[in-house]
Structures are given as structure tokens and as C-alpha cells.
């Protein structure tokens, strides 16, 4: 099994005709993801390398039965694109890759989607989801992954790759790798993903990558204590980050003592998570638990 995406995924890409959307959409297709449609208002009725393009997500869903949407539209229009996907009956999973969406847009869209839709929003500003051997929806280079039994969840894009790489290079495969994104208002959070991994029979261990800012790791720690029986290896970036400095992710702002990497590490250790100091040690730590 895998979570969020698998062989049943029918993917529509919003912004497939843009250069990034095209590159990654077709890389996902090449990996075996069932790419059924693209959406670009004004280009409906055309096709791109055999993939039909529609003017709207609703039309794409009606014509192709798409159940997952990847949002690859520019920051100024991405929030609207997420709303469109969430309003389309049949879209169960929305993966928003776009980086640089205004925080006010994210806050409005997150809450409105939660209040009015059953769609699951992953991202924005995330690398997407990869279920090795099944499907890839996002920008993670799929060749670094290996099918197996470890679930990966991360707030950081490139650290997700790093973690996958460390596992794969030791021959440890993954069920699904989920980048939840580092923006101030991400869609799903650690807890949502941990819950799915716990329920997934094929997942035997979990790697969780956090970073400074917010309290998502602390919330995850409470959830792990109460609901998780599977072993977790954790890593938190930003131990040496100076307080109050922004570190590229708007999310990575430290306020007072809460939100520090140290506090997050302590919270995770306190509930039995194996916390490593160095991403290079992730593979080793997981190997010791399996």
C-alpha cells in the first residue's frame, strides 16, 4: 500500500502547458503516474503530447475522471487554482507545488477549503508526494527512491530528497514520501500524514523531517505519544540558526524559546522518537529500528 497516491491516481495538472508544469508533469507521467489531463484556461480543446488540455478543472474531471490535481500555476493565481480544484467534485487530493504564494492567500484558502470541501490539500510550496513504484506527483527526482516499507514526511524539499537518498543508498525502500511544505499555512500537517502511515499496513517505520519555526513538530510529538505504535526517526534542521532571523522559509522564524530546533528535538525524544543530529545518519538510524 501507499498513502495519498498510487496506481489509482488519475492526475490532472493545473498549468501543464507552462514550462515547469510540463517538465514535471511529464516526468511524473514517465514514472508511471496516470496523467489524464492538463488545465490551462484558454487552451481547452488542444492537447499536449497526447494529454488533453481543458479550460477548467471541472471539465477535466468530467471528461477524464481525474481524482488528483497538481497545482503548478504562478503564485499570483495559485490560491485561486487551489480553490478551483477543491470545488471540483471528484478531486480528492490537491498537491500544490507553487512557491511564493502570499501568506494571506494561503490562510484564506486553507480555511475555506477545510470548511467547504473534503479534498486533501498538500502544500503549497512542497515537493509533492512520491509512492515509489506506483506514482509520483510532484518534483521529487524519482530515481533516488526505492519501493519499500518506510514512510517519509518532511517540511523541507531538498531535505526530503536527502532523507530518501540516505534510505535508498542503504537498500531501505519507502512506501510513500510526503513533502508537506514549509510555508506558514501548509495544507496537511505532520499529524495527518502520521495518521495515514500508522493505518498503512505496509509502512513499518517512519522518517519525519522538521525544521525551526511554528509548533508542528511539538504537535506531532503529542500525536505520536498518543496514537503511534510504529518506530519514528526524526531530524530537525536549524539547530544553529540565530534567533529571529528568517532563513528563506517564511516558516522558519523563531519566536522566543518556542519553535527552536532544540525544543522540537526534545519534544520528539520525549515521546520515543530516535532523533538524529545529522541527515546522513537517517539511514543508519532506520536500519537499526527495522
Amino acid at each position, binding site marked *: 500500500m501507499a498513502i495519498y497516491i498510487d496506481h489509482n491516481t488519475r492526475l490532472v495538472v493545473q498549468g501543464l502547458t507552462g514550462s*515547469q508544469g510540463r517538465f*514535471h508533469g511529464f516526468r511524473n507521467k514517465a514514472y508511471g503516474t496516470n496523467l489524464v489531463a492538463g488545465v490551462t484556461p484558454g487552451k481547452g480543446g488542444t492537447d499536449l503530447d497526447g494529454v488533453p488540455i481543458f479550460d477548467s478543472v471541472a471539465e477535466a474531471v468530467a471528461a477524464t475522471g481525474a481524482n488528483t490535481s497538481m497545482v503548478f500555476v504562478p*503564485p*499570483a493565481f495559485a490560491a485561486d487554482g487551489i480553490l478551483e480544484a477543491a470545488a471540483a467534485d471528484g478531486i480528492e487530493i490537491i498537491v500544490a507545488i507553487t*512557491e*511564493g*504564494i*502570499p*501568506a*494571506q*492567500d494561503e*490562510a*484564506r484558502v*486553507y*480555511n*475555506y477549503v477545510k*470548511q467547504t470541501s473534503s479534498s486533501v490539500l498538500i502544500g503549497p510550496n512542497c515537493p509533492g508526494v512520491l509512492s515509489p513504484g506506483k506514482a509520483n506527483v510532484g*518534483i*521529487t*527526482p524519482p530515481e*533516488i527512491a526505492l519501493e519499500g516499507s518506510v514512510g517519509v514526511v518532511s*517540511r*523541507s*524539499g*531538498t*531535505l526530503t*530528497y*536527502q532523507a530518501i*537518498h540516505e534510505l535508498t543508498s542503504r537498500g531501505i525502500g519507502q512506501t510513500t514520501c510526503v513533502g508537506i511544505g*514549509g510555508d*506558514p*499555512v501548509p495544507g496537511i500537517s505532520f499529524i495527518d500524514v502520521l495518521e495515514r502511515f500508522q493505518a498503512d499496513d505496509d509502512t513499518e517505520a517512519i522518517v519525519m*523531517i522538521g*525544521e*525551526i*519555526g*511554528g*509548533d*508542528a513538530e511539538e*504537535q506531532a510529538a503529542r500525536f505520536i505519544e498518543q496514537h503511534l505504535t510504529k518506530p519514528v526517526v526524526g*531530524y530537525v*534542521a*536549524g*539547530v*544553529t*540558526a*540565530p534567533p529571529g*532571523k*528568517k*532563513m*528563506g*522559509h*517564511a516558516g*522558519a522564524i523563531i519566536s*522566543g524559546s518556542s519553535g527552536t*530546533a532544540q525544543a522540537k528535538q526534545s519534544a520528539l525524544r520525549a515521546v520515543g522518537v530516535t532523533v538524529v*543530529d*545529522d*541527515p*546522513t545518519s537517517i539511514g543508519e538510524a532506520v536500519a537499526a529500528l527495522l
Partner: protein
Amino acid sequence: MDLFEYQGKSLFARLGVPVPEGRVARTPEEARTAAEEIGGKVVVKAQVQVGGRGKAGGIKLADGPDQAFAHATDILGMDIKGHTVDIVWLEQASNIAAEYYVSFTLDRSVKKHLAIVSAQGGMDIEAVAADTPEAVVKMHIDPVVGLTNWQASELVYRAKLDRATARKSAAALRKLYEAFVSLDCDLVEVNPLILTDDGEIVALDSKVTLDSNAFFRHPDFEDFRSAFTEDPMEKMARQRGLNFIKLDGSVGIIGNGAGLVMSTIDVVALVGGAASNFLDVGGGAGADTITNALEVLTNDPTVKSVLINIFGGITRCDLVAQGIVEALEGLELQWPIVVRLDGTNAVEGREILRGVVSDAVIPVETMREAAEKAVELAGKG
């Protein structure tokens, strides 16, 4: 982007939040003229992007133009927690009957906006919150509908602001919230929001952080930056689209993705070194981007070695390697570069580097190894 007090107040004024009349001055002479134009008693306030300027002597009351001149002379050029004062703001002195604290920000923990209001503003609000938490009222706001009238009203009454002027306070809260949302702010903080002797509500200070992701909606906001004395290296990096922050160590760090760069800095510390900077080239960096990043670091005399840590996703390792080769040719690099490449086109990238391997360009296999090597080299440099 953090604004100066006077810049934030100019935004408040746009939305109809009352602020005292004032002028900017960059010299004592300008301060004298400003005080003449304003008339009466004026407050001379250092414009710095850091708290605690009052205690540091950066805010002084002047009874007229001459004293404004004298205070501006004292304050301009002053160093407040590492920030040099280049600008003072002079404004009409207010008759304060009460000082409130108000802020609007995002509570990431619950993914809603958060209003914080207290009747005990003007002093250290964190101390108030610690000592008498009941004096600091917090309320979540659903971003879908924003701050409603009843919420503004309830904030005012629960925080025990003056009851006679409750409607005016509530209206000020609504306008400040409107500023927070419509101007795409990450933070709007007013401490103090004052009640004057004649029953008016006035924003006496402003702390506004703008969301630079939303500047496409507010093209004029870029102008605020011209007032900042930016670190030359940070400015150079920004103009080249690089995300750069100066740190205190000696190992220059270049990587792709904020998480990976933060992690690289941590690992450098773990093996006994210290990073001289945070430099994220972002996703999809080309050869030029890497050359630009290396050029930024040539301006930092504290750098003794450089660590390039790339995990290619959108970013292609062959282009990164190409950029390193071009930098070697075009720039005079004073330090060795340790390079770790993985992910998209890593094989091709390593192949390119093979042609320039030397004491100055050292490819390594893992992130940890890269950190160890870079720290070792920095120690020698």
C-alpha cells in the same frame, strides 16, 4: 520586510487609522525645519528596525525647533543594538490618557489570524503577558471572513479598554486588521495605541512586517527599501535573486533549498566549525546562479573555505558544476571549495568537476564528509 515606524504609519494613514502628524529628517537641520512645520512640542524618534530604542535614548521630547535640532544631533548616528540611526521621525507630542497594545499576526499553530490586545501597552508587553496573562487578550480570527464587528467589540471589552471610547477603539482595531490583510502584512503591531486626553484613539508607534511574496499586488512597497541601509553583501545577493544571511563563522555555505542549507550549517557546527553565512540558491539554479553565489562570498573577508551542498531536484548538478568551473575562470577565489553533488544529473556534474579537481576544488561523497572537509580547510585558512 520589516518597515520603519514612519513607513508603517504612512500605511496606517492610508487606511484611516489616526496617527500623529510628523516629518522625516536625516540631518539635525532637517529636524529643526520639521519641528517648525509641525509646531509645538515634538517627539524625536530614532528609526531603527529593532526594539528597545526608548531605553537606549533614541526617543526624546523637544519643546521646540532648537531642542529638536539638539536631540536629532544626539540621536542621528547613534548605535542601537548594532543598528546605526540614519533617520529620525519627528511628530506632534500627544497627551496620553491610556496606552494599549494591539497586534495582528498569523497563528501558525491553528492556521488562523490572531489578535492580541491589552490595556497595558507602552511597556514591555512580553513581561505583562508573563506576569499577568489575563491582561493580554487573544482571539483567533477566521481569515475567510476576517475580523467581525462583534470580535472587535469583544476584544475591546475583554481587554478592559476604556468603555466610554469603546466604539472608537473597536473601529481602530478593524482598520488595523484591514491594513494587516489588505496590505498583505505578516505582522501589524501597535504599541502603544493611545487614548488621548480628548478621547481620540491614535497609533503612536507601528511595527509592520510586509509579506514580500505579495509585492506583486503592491508594486509601490519596493520603494520602502530605499530608506534602509542594507548590508552590501545582502543587497548584492538580493539583487541576484539569492537568499543570503550573514552569520559569524568562517565556512561559506551554498546550497539549494532552505532546509538543506540550514541542515548544512548545523552539520558544520556539529563537526566543530561555524558557517559564515546562509546562502540558498533556490530551485532550478543555473550555472550563472552558482557563479553569482560564489561572487557574493568573495566580498566576505571572514570566509576561509566554502561548502557547496546540492541535492538536485529541479536543480541540475551538471549546471552547478559548470557554474563552479566558470567561477574558477572568471573570479579570483581566495578559498578552497568543497563540493557535494547528488540528485538530478549528479553523475554528469561530478564528471565536469573531475577536470578541475585541485586543492581549490574538492569533491566529496556525503554531506557529513563535506562539512568535515570544509571545517578542516577553514581551520587552515
